[in-house]
């Protein structure tokens, strides 16, 4: 049962939820939080949309295809950063070795941020998928 009150509140809330999620993701290297937590929050905004409106409006914004692409690219980005470290002569995920014009500690911070973003992309697609698939199963 969705009323105008729920719909309006959800419509106002969703952008802020997503903004908060992105904040958590990019703030991962310096504070508690990170890719997983932020990704779940962004994914949850899609769940809120599906609950307050209906399934199809959430599907419009995050279709099956988009979710699969985000899911895979997130995971591949993570593996790619790890393998990049191999290519420049380090061991897997040894961020400090990547030749960028800054101090190794800063390179590490930057790479942790990138990995966090990769995980965030992966998880936000996953969290939305978990709910949307379950709901689809139930509908059909």
């Amino acid at each position: 049962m969705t009323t105008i009150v729920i719909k309006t509140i959800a419509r106002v809330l969703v952008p802020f939820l997503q903004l908060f999620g992105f904040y958590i993701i990019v703030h991962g290297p310096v504070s508690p939080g990170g890719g997983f937590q932020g990704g779940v929050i962004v994914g949850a905004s899609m769940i809120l949309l599906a609950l307050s409106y209906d399934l199809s409006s959430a599907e419009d914004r995050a279709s099956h295809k988009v979710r699969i692409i985000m899911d895979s690219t997130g995971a591949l980005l993570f593996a790619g950063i790890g393998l990049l470290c191999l290519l420049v002569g380090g061991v897997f995920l040894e961020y400090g070795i990547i030749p960028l014009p800054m101090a190794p500690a800063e390179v590490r911070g930057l790479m942790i941020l990138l990995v966090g973003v990769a995980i965030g992309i992966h998880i936000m697609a996953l969290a939305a998928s978990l709910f949307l698939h379950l709901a689809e199963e139930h509908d059909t």
Partner: protein
Amino acid sequence: MILELIVANFPYFVSVVLFLVGLYAMIVRRNLIKKIMGLNILSTSVFLYLISVAYKEGGAPPIRVSEVEVYVNPLPHALVLTGIVVALALTSFALVLTIKIYKEYGTLDSDKLMDL
């Protein structure tokens, strides 16, 4: 005496009780959804145990700030976070299975499902 022991180790006792409740639900309850709830209670009890072990009186979050002396041990938190992700995956997959089973057989009673 016994009471003091319980009060001093309260989180551990709660976690043991939750563990047994969860195990009971998973083994004895016949409803498939209740088994999944049991699974969640069981894993929560393990998380509670790990978290309460890591807790230190007056400990700060493990981010280096100059004036803080005592930090909470971050590693059990990392373990628990990973454990939560695992439990999330298990729960959602189990729920999908339950929906499929209900659609196919029209019941969630494990005893009736055994007879089929």
